[in-house]
């Protein structure tokens, strides 16, 4: 009797739990999101140069914990030169994100020395995978955003580079002058400058005026 009473008391709680749990299980999903704006390099990259790209923001849009990895893929719609995947190195090969959590993944652009100058376009793709399932098909989700950058042939020096080189030259000249002064002082050389009294010249001979 007591057991029946206990079951009667627990039944609503069990039913409520089941109602909550079943839809959640049925709605388990895998999902991923990515920033809508393209990843663009301000300025141009040069062959042989390695530069930091703006980081790309990705988010776990699924219902559970996911592993998300970032790759670079050729833009299927064309436009611009294709980016070899080896040129772009994500700061981390993959990240584990809890539900609704987001992260900014740093990206490094490594342009090889023989890179062709031009405008490059690719897709940065964030792919999410959940726990792998045996039998049948695993379903995946991915989200892409554009990657755009320009490669120019000659490294055009920027303003701060010119300031730096000019400052460096000035510093070198100052050090050289100081060294010359030091050497002259130590050697004991003295340069005597004497002034000779000058004659009055023709104007005086012929009656020039003096103040």
């Amino acid at each position, binding site marked *: 009797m007591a057991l029946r009473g206990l079951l009667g008391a627990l039944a609503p709680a069990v039913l409520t739990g089941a109602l909550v749990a079943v839809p959640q299980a*049925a*709605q*388990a*999903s*895998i*999902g*991923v*999101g*990515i*920033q*809508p704006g*393209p990843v663009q390099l301000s300025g141009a990259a040069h062959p042989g140069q390695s530069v930091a790209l703006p980081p790309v*923001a990705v*988010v776990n*849009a*699924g219902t*559970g914990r996911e592993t998300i990895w970032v790759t670079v*893929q050729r*833009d*299927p*719609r*064309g*436009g*611009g030169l294709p980016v070899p995947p080896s040129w772009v190195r994500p700061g981390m090969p993959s990240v584990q994100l809890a539900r609704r959590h987001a992260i900014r993944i740093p990206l490094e652009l490594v342009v090889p020395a023989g890179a062709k100058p*031009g*405008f490059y*376009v690719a*897709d940065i*793709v964030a*792919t999410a995978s*959940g*726990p*792998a*399932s*045996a*039998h*049948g*098909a*695993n*379903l*995946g*989700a*991915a*989200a*892409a*955003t*554009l990657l*755009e950058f*320009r490669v120019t042939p000659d490294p055009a020096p920027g303003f701060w580079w010119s300031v730096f080189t000019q400052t460096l030259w000035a*510093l070198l000249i*100052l*050090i050289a*002058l*100081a*060294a010359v*002064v*030091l050497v002259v*002082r130590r050697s004991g050389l003295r340069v005597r400058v004497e002034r000779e009294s000058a004659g009055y010249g023709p104007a005086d001979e012929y009656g020039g005026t003096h103040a």
Partner: protein
Amino acid sequence: MRSLLVVAAIVIGGFLVIHVGKVATAKDPPPHGHSNSVAITFHTMQTYRTITVSPTAVNCGGYARGNPPNRSKGAMGFPWGTCAVGDRVKGKDPVTITYNGIQGLVFVHAGWAMPNGNEVGTPWKPCSSAGHRAVACTGKNGMPGYNQYTVRNFSPESPAPTQITGNNLCDVNFRPLSGCYASRGNSQREGFYITGPSKIPTTDTAQSWTAWVIWTAMPQHYKGHHE
């Protein structure tokens, strides 16, 4: 020597003055008296582009085809055994794909089918017998060849199943009337059919495989700066 030190000190001092002057920022003066603040919380619309797929894995059933004795109703036979996730005729479309965020496109591609766990088997590669033939099917009449397989997807609105390849391409079944264009909250139910290879290596012993189908939310159009 002293003069050299003086010159060096002047130069270093000048540099320090310039750089410290750049870095230093004026701080706000300390507030006078007491102050209180109130935190205002509000929500914004989702701006990032997302796609969700539910459920995360599905079973392939309804095994058919293959030639006796390599034919079974409980497993994929050879050659060209088939299985199905859903049923287009009966209106069963067990996979739900939902797009969110700013307008974009929904692309889809198939990955390699891999043997499960510790089983031994050579991966099957998705091939296409029509349309975008990046990896053409090498079997008879456009059927999958050695270690190849095909995936065809469908939705309630699609007139016929469409082949999915290993290349990420527009999922025309996502919105059959307007291609694969997707906007905030667009959702579609889909199912698919899998056709196995003509044959597999005799050294393969795997009897349990997993294929991959991946949907991708793509930017709508390219806004690059052409040369």
